[in-house]
C-alpha cells in the first residue's frame, strides 16, 4: 500500500511579480524515487527547493497554496523552517562539502542540531557506509574533505544529509557535475537508499530518470504537464508534449 509523504495542493510560486509555478497539485509517495524532469527554467528545481523551504532564503518570493508534509502544512504560520529541513534533507547540484575534515563534515549537522544521541563515531561510520564512501575514507577521516574527488565529495554530501536521519532526501541534479563513473556510483547508491528514504530527484538526464525512478513528473514553463509511473511516461506518455520532450524533439 502506497502512502503519500508530501502532498502539494494548488501551489503557486512567485519570484517578485513573475510566476514560476502554476497551480501545482501532486503527491509524493513514501519510499519511492520520484524524478522531476523538464527543460531548463521549467520550475522543477524551484519546486524541489519549496519542499524544504530553501526558497525562503531568496528575497521577494511568495508561495500560495499548501504543501503538506506528513499531513501538516509546512508553510503554515509558526512552522519553523529549521525543523522542516532536519526532516527533509538536500543534496545540491555542485558538491559543496564544508572546508572541514571528512569526519566534521558528517558530524556537523547532528552535533549542532542536537540530533546526535549516543555515539557520534558510530553515526559518522554508519552514514559514510550508507553513502558507500566508508571504505575509501576510513583512514583519512581527519583529512580535509576538499581533497576528495568530485564524485567522492558528492557522496560525502549525501552522507552528511543522511547523518541527520531525514525522512525525505531532495536531490537537485546531483550528478550533473560528475563524470560517468561517479554518476553510476551515485545511481547505485540511490537504488540502495530508496529502501529506507523517500527520494525526490531533479535531473536533466532522461536515461537517469528512466533508470532510477519509480515515478516521473514532467514540467514545462511552471506547469505540471504529466505525472505517472516512470515506465508509463517513458513508453507511452499520455501527453504529446511529454513524448516530444523525452524523445528529444524539444528541450
Amino acid at each position, binding site marked *: 500500500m502506497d502512502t503519500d509523504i508530501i502532498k502539494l495542493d494548488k501551489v503557486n510560486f512567485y519570484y517578485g511579480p513573475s510566476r514560476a509555478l502554476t497551480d501545482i497539485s501532486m503527491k509524493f509517495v513514501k519510499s519511492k524515487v520520484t524524478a522531476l524532469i523538464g527543460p531548463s527554467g521549467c520550475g522543477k528545481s524551484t519546486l524541489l527547493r519549496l519542499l524544504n523551504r530553501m526558497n525562503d*532564503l531568496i528575497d521577494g518570493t511568495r508561495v500560495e497554496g499548501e504543501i503538506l508534509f506528513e499531513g501538516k502544512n509546512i508553510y503554515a504560520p509558526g512552522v519553523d523552517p529549521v525543523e522542516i*529541513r532536519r526532516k527533509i534533507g538536500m543534496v545540491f547540484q555542485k558538491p559543496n562539502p*564544508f*572546508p572541514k575534515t571528512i569526519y566534521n563534515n558528517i558530524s556537523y549537522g547532528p552535533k549542532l*542540531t542536537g540530533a546526535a544521541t549516543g555515539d557520534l563515531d558510530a553515526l559518522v561510520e554508519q552514514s559514510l557506509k550508507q553513502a558507500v564512501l566508508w571504505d575509501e575514507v576510513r583512514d583519512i577521516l581527519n583529512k580535509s574533505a*576538499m581533497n576528495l574527488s568530485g564524485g567522492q565529495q558528492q557522496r560525502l554530501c549525501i552522507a552528511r544529509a543522511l547523518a*541527520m536521519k531525514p525522512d525525505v532526501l531532495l536531490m537537485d541534479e546531483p550528478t550533473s557535475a560528475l563524470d560517468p563513473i561517479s554518476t553510476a556510483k551515485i545511481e547505485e547508491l540511490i537504488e540502495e537508499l530508496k529502501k529506507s528514504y523517500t527520494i525526490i530527484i531533479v535531473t536533466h538526464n532522461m536515461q537517469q530518470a528512466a533508470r532510477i525512478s519509480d515515478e516521473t513528473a514532467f514540467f514545462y514553463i511552471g506547469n505540471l504537464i504529466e505525472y505517472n509511473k516512470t515506465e508509463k511516461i517513458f513508453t507511452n506518455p499520455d501527453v504529446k508534449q511529454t513524448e516530444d520532450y523525452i524523445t528529444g524533439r524539444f528541450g
Partner: protein
Amino acid sequence: MLAFKMNYMKWRYFKQGVFFMLVRASALIITLALGFILAYIIYNGISAISWDFITKPPTDSMTKGGIMPAILGTIYLTVGAIAVGLPLGIASAIYLTEYAREGRVIRFLKVGINCLAGVPSVVFGLFGLGFFVIFLKFGSSILSGSLTLGFLILPTIIGASEEALKSVPQTFREASLSLGVSKWQTIYRIVLPNALPGILTGSILGIGRAAGETAPIMFTAAAYFTAKLPSSVFDEVMALPYHIYVLATAGTNIEATRPIQFGTVLVLVAVVLGIDLFAIVIRGYMRRNKRW
C-alpha cells in the same frame, strides 16, 4: 593587403608594449616612493636607536633619553582600538550582509558608514573629547583614546568584513541550512570562520591607521610628557605619533632633537609593521585549510 595586415599587427603589438610599460612604470614608481621614504627614515633615524632608546623614558626635557613610555602607550592604544573596533565592526558587517534586507534603511546606513570613513581624524578627536573625555568623564585616558580610535577605524573594518563575508560561497550557507542548522549557527560555525582571514587582511589597514594617527589621541589620550607608566585604563599615556609631533613642533630644542624625532618615526613604523606582521601570521594560520 598582407603588408597592411602586418603593419596593423605591429601597430597593435606596439600599443600593447606601451601599455605594459606604463603599468610597469606605475608599479615601479610606487615601490620606489615607498622604498625612498623608508630609506630616508632609516638613514636619519638609525643613529638614535639603541637599547636604552627603546627601554628608557625621556630625560633632560625630552632632549635625551628614550621613548619607552610612548612605545608602550601606542601599543596600549592600538590594542584598545582593535578591541573596540573589531567586534563592533564585524557585528555590524554580519548584520548588513547576513540579516538586513535591501531597503531604504540599509541604504541610509551604508551611506552613513561611508561618510564616517570620510570624516577627518581631527573631528573624531574633538568628538572623543566632547563625548568620552568630558561627557562620560573618562578623562584624557587610554580608554577615551581607544574608543575614539576604535570608532575611527570602524568604517575600514566594516568594509573589509562585509567584503570577506560576501566572498564566502553561498553554497556553504545553503549546505548548512539544508541540514536544519539555524541561521545564527550557520553564521557562527561556517560563515565567520571562513571570512576571518579576509576580515583580518582588511582590518590590518585600520590597525596601522590606529597606531599612526595623531589628531584623535591629541585631546583624548596622549600626554605631552609623563615618565610614569599607566596603571589603569583611566591613565594618560604618551604615544609615538603625538611624541613626534611634540618634538618636531613644540619641543624644547627642535633642531637638537632631530635624530630623536627620526628615531621615533622609525620605531613607530616598526611597531605598525610588527602589528601587521602579527595579523598576517594569524591570517596565514587560519587560512591553512582554505581551499575553494
